[in-house]
């Protein structure tokens, strides 16, 4: 079984306790009502989905229940690192900006 390190529980836990929660570091626009439809579409629907290293949100739903961020390789399914929500996006060699 895949083990994922939860930054809040401070240890590796079985993947069954976790749930994927989409792309990380999306910035919610300040005033959605004044956005153009194209800009809103970009914010709401369009994701990078690169092959390789991705920045993702995960939730330790059957553990501490907290959301956190992770860098994962979509080819090997290897987790490079995990960090608390709100922490700075780490610079990882080979990851898309």
């Amino acid at each position, binding site marked *: 079984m895949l083990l994922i390190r939860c930054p809040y*529980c401070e240890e590796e836990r079985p993947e069954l*306790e976790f749930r994927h929660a989409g792309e990380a570091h999306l910035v919610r626009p300040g005033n959605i009502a004044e956005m153009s439809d194209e800009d809103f579409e970009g914010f709401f629907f369009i994701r990078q989905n690169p092959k390789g290293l991705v920045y993702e949100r995960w939730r330790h739903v*059957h553990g501490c229940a907290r959301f956190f961020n992770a860098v994962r390789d979509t080819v090997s399914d290897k987790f490079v690192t995990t960090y608390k929500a709100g922490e700075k996006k780490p610079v990882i060699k080979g990851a898309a900006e």
Partner: protein
Amino acid sequence: MARSNEALRRPALEGRAASHAWVSVTPAAPASRLSLRTPADSVGAVSKALGFALPQKPKTSAQKNGRAALWLGPDEWLVIDESGSEISPALGKVKAFHSAVDVSHRNVGIVVSGPGAEATIAAGCPQDILLATFPVGACSRTVLGKIEIVLWRTGDTTFRVECWRSFSDYAFTFLSEAARDAAV
């Protein structure tokens, strides 16, 4: 015959028990329970009202006089009181910001005890629950089979499984079946 106006309280797992050579599975006695959410700067005041300090480290618990607090998340605890006293009145007086929801009847406790307890839990729980990594007093929200539980090690060979009431039949049956296979 005397007639009573009181509703009959029937525990979800009334009368059920499973006992095997290495392990027994029994329903825990009724208890008062709180789902407690407390930001860091309220922890002191809430701890004082509870009668002991809320544990701050992941996967740890604290207890005193039949009342225990289990760390579930950075600002979340499950409080279980088996002493027969209600917990809510003490917390009602706390001015510091917090949330305490009485979940006494939402949860059902199951005690798994004996040399085969570890193997019985491990039949459905993916966490590493060996004594070295999950020592006495350790607790965690996790999964058992296809349901969510709170697991709490209360002794070298004793675990308490807390699950939601409607899942208790599944949990108890699962643990009973696992207990049959739990050889040491």
